[in-house]
Every structure is written in C-alpha cells, then in structure tokens.
C-alpha cells in the first residue's frame, strides 16, 4: 500500500518536473526578449531539477543511489541559478538594458521606422 502511494507520488513529481522543463523550453523559444527568455529557462534549473530529482529519489528508495541523486541535485541547484545570474550579468555589462517597454531585443523588430 505504502509502496503504491510512494510510486504514485514519485510519478506525479516526475510528470510535474517534466511539465516545468517543457514550460521552460517553450518560454525560451516564445518570449520576446533576452531577460524574459532566461527567466523562463531558469525554471528548468530550479523547479524542474527539484521535482525530477525528488521523484527519482523516491523511486530509488533508501539506498546509495538516492544519496548520489541528492548530491547531483545539490550540485545542479548551486550551479544552474549561478549560470543564469552570470549570463544576465554579462548581458547587462555588455549594454543590453532590461526594458519592459521594448517587446523584443532584436534590432530589426525594434526599428522605430
């Protein structure tokens, strides 16, 4: 009984994690400018990672594999948001202004003429 419940919970988490990754992917393609795109993509790094790894840890049970999965999750949770921050910071330093009024940072689409 408890096994079945754990199995259902783990699959629920895995599917939710997959949905988060999918949303991140769609957002990365569809959103108009750079900062909104990395905002969407960072969803993959955080929510996607947590949900998928907790789901996999429930599948692994109390074992060495669960510990390894936890270590990988910790690593990804540390590095993913840092990479997103570094990307945004580099964009800001190279002169890309986060401007809510501008729909797209593609110069051709933003041409005032």
């Amino acid at each position, binding site marked *: 009984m408890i096994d079945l419940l754990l199995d259902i919970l783990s699959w629920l988490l895995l599917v939710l994690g997959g949905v988060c990754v999918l949303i991140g992917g769609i957002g990365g393609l569809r959103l108009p400018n750079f900062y909104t795109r990395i905002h969407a993509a960072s969803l993959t790094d955080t929510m996607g990672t947590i949900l998928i790894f907790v789901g996999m840890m429930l599948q692994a049970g109390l074992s060495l594999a669960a510990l390894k999965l936890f270590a990988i999750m910790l690593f990804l949770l*540390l*590095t993913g948001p*840092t990479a997103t*921050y*570094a990307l945004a*910071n580099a964009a800001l330093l190279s002169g890309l202004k986060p401007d809510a009024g501008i729909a797209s940072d593609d110069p051709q689409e933003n041409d005032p003429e």
Partner: protein
Amino acid sequence: MIFIFAVFLLTLLVITAIAIVRTEDLFVAVMLTSIFSLLMAANFFILDAADVALTEAAVGAGVTTVIFLCALALTGDREKPRQGSRWITFSTVGVLALLIIYATFDKPRLGDPDAPVHQHVAPWYLEKTPEYIDIPNVVTAILGSFRGYDTLGEVFVVFAACIGVLFILGVRPPRKAVALSDKSKGLRHHLIPQVVGRLLIPFIVLFGLYVQFHGEYGPGGGFQAGAIIATGIILYALLEGEANALRAVPRKVLLGMVVGGAMLYGAVGVVCMLMGGAFLDYSVLASDPVFGQQLGILIIEAGVGMAVCGALLSIFHAFAAREGLS
C-alpha cells in the same frame, strides 16, 4: 526504450553537426561543439562505454570549449566569407558519405556477440584479467597493463602536443607589448559566481582525485582525472584571475607535471627491466606478481594524470597570457 532514446540522441547529434557547419558565428559554433560532445558522451554511456563517456564529457565538453573560447578571443568570432563554388568539397563529402553508408551494410548487428571484434583478443582479456591483475575494471587493465605501450605512446603524444602549442604561442609579438593589468583580475566584482565557485572547486578537485585512484574499480583513470582537475583549476583562473591561478600552481610546476608524468611512466618501464622483467611488465615490481601489476597500473595512471592535467593547464595559460598582450 533505450533504443528509442539512442535514436533520439543520434538525431540530435546530426542536427547539431549540421548547425555547426551552417553557422557563421564561430562563438555559436564553439557552443554547439560543446553540446555535440555532451550528446556524444551520452551516446557512449548508452553503449556501456563509461570510461570513454567520462573522457568525452570532461575533455570535449569541458576543457576544449574553454580553449576554443580563448582562441576566439585572440582571433575573431566571425567566419571568413568564402568566394567561389565549393563543388569539390561537396562532391568529396558526398562520395565519402556514400562509401561510409555502403560500408555499414557489412557491419554486424549492434551488440552481436559473434562480431569479429568480440572474437579476436577481447575474450582473452576478459578471461585473464582476474587471474593476472585481479581488478574489476577490465578497461583499466587493458589500458594500463596489456596495452601499456599504446598508453605510453598516448602520453607522449600529449607531451608533444603541449610542447608544440607552447612553442607556437610562446613567440612574443614583434612590438614591445605591455601586459594589461585589469584583464587579469577575472570576475573579482562578481560576488555570486565567486562564492559558488569557491564552494565547488575543492569538490571538483576531490572528484578528480577519486576518478584518478578509483580507476581500477570503476570508470575513470589518469586521462579523465587530469582533465577534471584541470577544469577545476581553469574555473579558479576564470573566477579569481589568471595571476592568482598561476600563483597557486606556477608555470614551472605545470611543466614539471607534464615532463614528470611522461618520465614517471617511462621510468616504471625501465625499473621493470632493471628488476629482470620486460619493459612495462609490472609483475616483477613486487614479490606477488598480481600485486606488482596493480602497483604498476597505479603508478602509471598517476603519471598519465599528471601529464594530462599539466598539459591542459599549460595550454590554457599559454592562450590566456597571449590575451594579456596587446
């Protein structure tokens, strides 16, 4: 299920390869090459070649990307526009592709136990490794002991490549150049990457040492460990500035590692000869031949790790020093 995943990965590989050829922005091409290596590593892992996958991920996706980016910083990130028709290129590629497709018709099925490659010397290695060397990872046994000459050759290739790159990049530009001071500061004003990097670098180096000394039991060995440790130190150089990294691991130490690693490997072979065996026949190193083999593999793997780590870091520093000159 795994078959579908493998086909998916191979399809992505083809798409990435086409994208690399088609893009004119070399920066994008370098990033795509990194993705290509990562996909390739996943493919190797599906084929149960964990040692090769680890190497591909550490060297292909990690270190070479950084070195390519250093090279781009020296040259430029746009492809040179090309004039004239390219029908010779296209026809050569087309003929080669047709030949390769034709050759695959004779290829045995994937994982076929009757394939010639599994009938040649592989059964002997699998059968004799527990008897002669007694370590679980047959790949390490083959690399280190049965085919020790080949690995010695590879280490000297790394050694020669490192010397070649240092010769080319070590040439000073004709004008008296001044080192830029602000370029070597790294990301000093970026607090978050620096804090996270400081947290991670010890673990990366520790993992490298684990891969180095666990190579007889799991996937890993000198090549992978050298690349992983080099990645950790390159990360340090990017975060804290190149000068600090050189203070931590000076250039002399790096060259000493390259030379010392290659020499250590050769010296083990010579010691084997002095103790009455053949060159690189580790059985004579200890009174128990099996322990002698294990000892020999441990020492030569350490030599390989030192040589690879030193070579990669020397090449990185050679590029970075070149960047500081204007």
